């Protein structure tokens, strides 16, 4: 009889520990999931950007008409992709090539942009302006957030 009581007590104790562990685990998992979402969703680079100007060797140059119709989308899943922001794309722009690129945060406001394993550029987020420096050319592209 006493053995049975002890067993029952043990059983209740184990159940309590298991219940506590389960809820702790749920709490930890849900907290960590929230944090991950928060970090990618709230990364300030995520969003739509429009190329507004360019310098080559520090000299401002005019943008091509096709380039002014493009919106750069930086996604939460650490990819970025360009597409036209209009359905009325001029004939001469219709064969532009767009590439799926990847981004990785390097430091607080700097990001590395790659095509596969090839480094394409670095991007700097500065006062809500995105500044892209090409890796092997003296080009700087300036983006502003799309409305």
């Amino acid at each position, binding site marked *: 009889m006493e053995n049975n009581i002890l067993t029952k007590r043990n059983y209740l104790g184990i159940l309590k520990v298991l219940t506590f562990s389960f809820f702790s685990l749920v709490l930890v998992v849900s907290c960590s999931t929230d944090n991950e979402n928060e970090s990618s969703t709230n990364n300030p680079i995520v969003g739509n950007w429009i190329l507004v100007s360019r310098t080559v060797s520090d000299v401002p140059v005019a943008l091509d008409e096709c380039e002014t119709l493009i919106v750069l989308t930086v996604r939460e899943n650490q990819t970025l992709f360009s597409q036209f922001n209009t359905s009325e794309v001029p004939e001469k722009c219709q064969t532009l090539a767009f590439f799926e690129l990847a981004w990785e945060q390097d430091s607080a406001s700097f990001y590395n942009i790659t095509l596969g394993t*090839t480094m394409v550029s670095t991007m700097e987020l500065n006062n809500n302006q995105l500044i892209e420096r090409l890796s092997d050319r003296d080009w700087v592209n300036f983006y502003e957030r799309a409305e």
Partner: protein
Amino acid sequence: MQLKTTLHILSLFLLLVSHVTGQDKESKSFSLEKDLLLAHYDCKTDVDDLHSIAAFATLLAQDSYAQLQYHAVAGTYGIQEGLYVPPNELFQLAFDDNWSDAHENPKPTLARVVDLAKTTLENHGDVWIAEAGQSDFSAVLIQALQTDIPEIRISERVHLVQHSNWNEDVTTPTALKFVQRSVDYQKIPDGNALGNGTPGFQSAEYDNWSDHIQNPELLATWEMAITMGNQYNGKEGRYLNKAIAEGGLDFSDFSEICWILKLNNLENVADFFEHYGK
């Protein structure tokens, strides 16, 4: 002692293997039976493309290249500023209907070239691009091939030959990186200079080409190329090609076709007309 000998034998074996592998890669040759040669001309803003077109037409007129499968594309320019050199009349004379206009009709041109390239690749041939301009058009072409025929290794079966640093510099940066990593990209020495491993096809002095060209159609092609070259050279902000301005010739972009077809016997403009003029 035994270990040293074994290591020596092993390193010799590895050296031999790497040499043989490298040789295989270098020695991939154009197959006249199976392969397709795409000749891409930017025609912006240098007029040297016009002379290069006439040079390619001269080669195509040789019996030995009668079965060469090719397609020429006009207007494969990149991001350079300046005016286009309208070449359509010359393309028609040089290539009959075996060419497309990416300047006026980019989408139909892309569709036609993708179709030709796919047919070649699906029939076990390779595609060779002589990039006489920038690689923006090639980037879109390669992207389309990757999407349409993912089962074919584009990186091994499409070869792109480029001779000019400037052409690379005025290709959209990401497009250049894309083609360089996606296909067998071969950068060769500049076809404007002599003695660098590729023929030097620019000469301000050479003007007796008509002594060699006997085929009336080729004569007409060269006359048109030279007339159009003089008409647009340095005009309305276009690049001034000094060799052409001095009455000479510049078909430096033809050096890529020479590389692809392994025309190793040519060194300069005079060589070209002596070998292929008749």
